[in-house]
């Protein structure tokens, strides 16, 4: 007979090894970028314009450009996404059309990001004549972000017990009053998590801004929403593939800055989640 304890220990060890295999590449990527990029990070790198064919100076316009694009994405995607989720979770009846709508949202989440880029080029840049600009890029990123925000927010709203809506109605609340004063506050942590995850993706993607917003080399801050901008992911792509003789220090430094922005947004999401979870009482 096989020793049961031995089998159990074997199982645990196996699972531990598998977990390690999952975590190792991530740790390696982060570690590699930190080690090789940290030397590039200094005040000038973060706050100065690029100089000498981007081989010297800083990446300030790319950092600002990425923050601008994320901000623009947030302004468009949050109200539309949360509004859409409230409609789907609280108001929409189960009809043929709402099913089509849901299907569309699910499929939208699976569309490759370069397709969003081409769509943005066609609609915003060319047809609406926004040109290659912060505006066109933000709108493109917002469309890419919407399905993530809508589906996580809808999920969060549905997780709020139905009884609360019933109680609110029985106390003379309209449906909207119940949603605003009870359902929405309860769903907020989930909604915020979805928003941050969506914006994270917007911050890191290159393809959607490739044709819609990004400038190869533009050593200044955009003066209006209708100007193109540098952005971290695209800048990273450019200095890694398009500029011969680029010092790797700068490449890794740029990657480190992008990674830091993305990971700190992730951390904020985690903190918000755990803060609300501890406060929740029902």
């Amino acid at each position, binding site marked *: 007979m096989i020793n049961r304890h031995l089998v159990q220990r074997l199982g645990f060890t196996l699972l531990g090894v598998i977990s390690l295999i999952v975590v190792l590449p991530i740790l390696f990527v982060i570690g590699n970028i930190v080690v090789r990029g940290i030397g590039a990070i200094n005040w000038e790198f973060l706050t100065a314009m690029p100089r000498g064919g981007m081989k010297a100076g800083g990446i300030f316009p790319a950092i600002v450009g990425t923050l601008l694009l994320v901000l623009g994405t947030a302004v468009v995607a949050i109200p539309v996404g949360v509004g859409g989720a409230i409609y789907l979770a609280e108001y929409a009846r189960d009809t043929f059309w709402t099913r089509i709508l849901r299907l569309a949202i699910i499929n939208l989440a699976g569309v490759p990001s370069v397709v969003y880029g081409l769509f943005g080029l066609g609609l915003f840049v060319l047809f609406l004549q926004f040109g290659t600009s912060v505006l066109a890029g933000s709108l493109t990123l917002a469309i890419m972000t919407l399905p993530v925000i809508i589906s996580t927010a809808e999920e969060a709203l549905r997780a709020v017990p139905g*009884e609360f809506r019933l109680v609110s109605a*029985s*106390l*003379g609340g309209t449906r909207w009053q119940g949603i605003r004063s009870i359902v929405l506050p309860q769903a907020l942590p989930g909604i915020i998590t979805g928003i941050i995850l969506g914006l994270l993706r917007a911050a890191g993607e290159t393809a959607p801004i490739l044709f819609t917003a990004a400038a190869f080399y533009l050593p200044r801050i955009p003066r209006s929403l209708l100007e193109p901008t540098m952005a971290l992911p695209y800048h990273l792509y450019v200095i890694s593939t398009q500029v011969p003789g680029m010092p790797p220090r700068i490449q890794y430094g740029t990657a480190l800055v992008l990674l830091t922005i993305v990971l700190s947004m992730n951390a904020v999401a985690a903190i918000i989640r755990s803060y609300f979870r501890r406060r929740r*009482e029902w």
Partner: protein
Amino acid sequence: MEPKIRLENVSYYYGNQPALRDVTLDIPPNAITVIFGPAGGGKTTLLRLINRLNDEVEGTRMTGRVLLDGQDIYAPGVDVPRLRRRVGMVFALPLPLPGTVRENILYGPKLAGVRDRARLEEILERSLRLAALWDEVKDRLDDPASRLSGGQQQRLCIARSLALEPEVLLLDEPTSGLDPISTGKVEEALQELKHRYTIVIFPHSVQQAARVADYAAFFLMGEMVECQPGRDLFTTPRDRRTEDYITGRFG
């Protein structure tokens, strides 16, 4: 005496499934009317028709009329939130809203537009006293409502309905989750409340029905079998099925 609530030939269907069949029932004011019978008798449906809480359920159909003070509450143009303020409801399980005791009680009045601080404080104390909860929670008004015991939570829910100064109070098995002592407290509170309100209650047992009923209606499979003053119904039921049920031969 004019009935507070009158149901006239009310039938109600979920899809094609009838939940209530041709129910005609008068509910007198300032008394406790008990509606009882085995599960599936259409009781919850009946209660939710009186404050139109069934409006939200899809695929349902109603015929007949429900009158409150002689007015058809399903007539076009009826202000449903206002109707629900006049007809308060307490659910089978204590369902405190997220938030403190105070926030729970004042939720309805604030939605109704009461802003004055002093007035709100007055409502808070009055409703909690009416529900016989004030002495137990007066020092914990800003604690989360979920930290109260089950019995306290249920009286909180009663107080929350009373905060709107309703005319009718509907209670759906309000003591089903409670121990005997808490149940006693809720029943005591109801005896006080009936002087001011019209109360309709589904008891969670025949014994409770007999204890609290001024009037009692026996429901079976969506039909009202009979309705009489409580002491008559529980001593000399007219219908054989009622007698079988209250003597414990089925149900």
